């Protein structure tokens, strides 16, 4: 929903928009919340001019397609308002939110509630994801048609896998009628057991029960096979294991409609971090778990060679009291919205793994395409959802300063290069990063 604003022109900055085939210095004119024009040396007329600082890069608004907003039901961890503000501060103009709320988003009324709350908040756009099964219990399929009509963009029982092969088959077939993907939390429950960390040398020595990499890949292989026979679209969420990467690659090479996403923590950290300091930091406990170096490198390789389609954060807020428990008892998950851009710029772009253009695909164009939602490119006439990056700005992560309601991040004190400078949703500059020099220019005075 675009708010009328004064016309203004983002002048002279570098624009990276791979879907439009654009990477160069362009002016972008924004009027009434929409992109009015894009080109070289646009006429300024009466528009306000924002000189884009040298080194800044404007991209299509970033979209995080795997976020837990926790509302309704777990507002002590996060609300739709705090979560979407965290998204905006992190550079995201849109988020897709997972249905494992309380109640589960398995009916149009819950979907409508989420969208209503998101509109009231007025921060990042919210694209609800509906449950595959009622209550995500794995028994009865949800009314996907109704949910789709209410605004759901995909279906998942995230938090756990779709319970049976039969249900997954039916879901792929049924969702196929609407051409929306099934997003799968790949995990074989019997192999995962009551594991709390990656099954490997580190967990063995720390005495933590293991979750093997194959617990993930076996479920991915099941789902890819089912997508192959049904023609449905399967999306592998938060991929962590090298075996899963191989399964997805195999599927893609056979022409299966399979896509996958990786979270920043899985390409920046390994289970070795569990030994740091006093050890057993529960902000390193997530599901799927931090795996070993070979897995991390497999994620990096997938990002490099194009096998990975999307980066998403699996933003999973938990209250500090819930995390201040024995490792066995603490809940899985970390927040990710506000650390994603610096981690990606530092560890992927500056590290030479991928280009900035490829990063924009991973964080914007590809999730928009997968979910068939607006954005993912800067198009004349479309809502002006833009992210301005300051790829060289130094960032020191301070978890206490995160705007998310929860601070459960393992990246405290990390020093990284690359920040979000400003986030523009529907033409409105919702956020200008006070820690980035010259970002204040984006705010109308």
């Amino acid at each position, binding site marked *: 929903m675009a708010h009328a604003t004064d016309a203004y022109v983002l002048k002279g900055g570098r624009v990276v928009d791979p879907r439009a085939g654009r990477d160069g210095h362009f002016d972008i004119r924004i009027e009434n919340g929409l992109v009015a024009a894009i080109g070289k040396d646009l006429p300024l007329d009466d528009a306000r001019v924002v000189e884009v600082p040298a080194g800044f890069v404007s991209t299509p608004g970033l979209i995080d397609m795997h976020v837990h907003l926790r509302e309704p039901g777990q507002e002590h961890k996060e609300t739709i308002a705090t979560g979407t503000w965290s998204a905006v501060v992190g550079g995201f103009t849109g988020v897709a939110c997972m249905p494992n709320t309380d109640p589960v988003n398995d009916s149009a009324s819950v979907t409508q509630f989420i969208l209503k709350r998101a509109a009231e908040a007025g921060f990042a756009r919210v694209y609800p994801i509906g449950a595959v099964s009622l209550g995500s219990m794995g028994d009865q399929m949800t009314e996907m048609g109704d949910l789709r009509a209410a605004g759901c963009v995909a279906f998942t029982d995230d938090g756990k896998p779709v319970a049976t092969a039969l249900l997954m088959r039916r879901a792929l077939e049924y969702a196929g009628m609407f051409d929306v993907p099934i997003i799968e939390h790949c995990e074989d429950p019997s192999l995962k057991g009551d594991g709390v960390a990656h099954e490997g040398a580190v*967990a063995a020595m720390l005495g933590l029960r293991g979750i093997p990499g194959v617990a993930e890949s076996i479920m991915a292989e099941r789902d890819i096979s089912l997508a192959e026979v049904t023609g449905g679209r399967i999306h592998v969420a938060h991929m962590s294991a090298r075996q899963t990467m191989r399964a997805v690659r195999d599927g893609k090479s056979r022409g299966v409609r399979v896509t996958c996403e990786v979270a920043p923590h899985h390409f920046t950290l390994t289970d070795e971090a569990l030994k740091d300091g006093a050890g057993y930091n529960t902000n390193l406990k997530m599901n799927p778990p931090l795996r070993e170096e070979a897995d991390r490198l497999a994620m990096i390789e997938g990002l490099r060679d194009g096998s990975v389609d999307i980066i998403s954060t699996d933003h999973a807020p938990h209250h500090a009291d819930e995390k201040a428990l024995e490792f066995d008892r603490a809940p899985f998950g970390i927040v990710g919205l506000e650390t994603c851009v610096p981690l990606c710029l530092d560890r992927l772009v500056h590290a030479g793994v991928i280009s900035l253009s490829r990063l924009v695909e991973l964080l914007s164009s590809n999730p928009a395409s997968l979910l068939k939602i607006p954005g993912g490119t800067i198009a004349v006439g479309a809502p002006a959802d833009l992210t301005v990056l300051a790829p060289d700005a130094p960032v020191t992560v301070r978890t206490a300063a995160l705007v998310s309601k929860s601070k459960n991040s393992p990246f405290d004190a990390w020093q990284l290069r690359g920040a979000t400078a400003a986030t523009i949703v529907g033409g409105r500059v919702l956020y200008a990063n006070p820690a980035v020099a010259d970002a204040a220019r984006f705010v109308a005075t």
Partner: protein
Amino acid sequence: MTAATKLRSRHLLGIAELDPDEIELILDTAVAMKEIGTRTIKKVPALRGRTVVNLFFEASTRTRLSFELAEKRLSADTMGITVAGSSVTKGETLADTARTLEAMSPDLIVIRHAASGSPHLLSTICKAGIVNAGDGTHEHPTQALLDALTMRERKGRLAGLKVAIVGDLLHSRVLRSNVLLLTKMGAEVRACGPATLIPLGLKALGVHVTTSIDEAVKDADVVMMLRVQHERMHGLFLPSLREYFSLFGLTPARLEHAASNVIVMHPGPMNRGVEIDSAVADGPWSVILDQVANGVAVRMAVLYLLAGEELT
């Protein structure tokens, strides 16, 4: 290497954090502590006025009694808190329990807990020194130290000893602490157990891993049997007690291939007829009762060495 004169940490969270010279220091101190147990008045005033809390979230008669005796022999004031049931009983969190205890200004907290890493969590909250008395499937450092003291007494050294450790390797904190200690001190460790109960990454620690007890025991100076818990004895880890004993039970016949003066150890409590034949447990090889006596001495040494530093 110069000999340690103090422990570098004010906690004993695990063997992993100890250097070899610190292990030597604890063992040497334990030798001196052992003499106190031979006196008529088995008590010294070293920790007079110090408060030690024994925080046991898991039933453990022998470890708790051993720590209590060690504390009393050092004249510490002790409080025992035994939380019935398992770690997953709802209610007060460990962090809140720790803060409550902290308000009573204990000098040392001895903790036994079913969740790995619980002592580490406590050490981030409490000012008191933390002693790990067994955490989940992670470590049981005082057990490994008393085992080492027993081996050193009987064999005169640790370096170069061939030590076979047999049993449930996956769930055993005794295994982890012993492997860490023995490899640090230059012993040769063979770990043996059913393939379903061998953790990944054990080999990386420089341990020879085998599923053949005969291979493990051959020429061994020390055979350490680990307790196999009954709850593991059915379901998906092992088919039956009967088969376990036939494949992995320590019998006099199997011991014949060990070194001639082999000693047999067990952290207790034993399952006779499951992991160990009674003829072995009660036989001339057994040093199981030495282990119990050494447990008190080692725990006195640890408490004494950790209590030495004034808290700031």
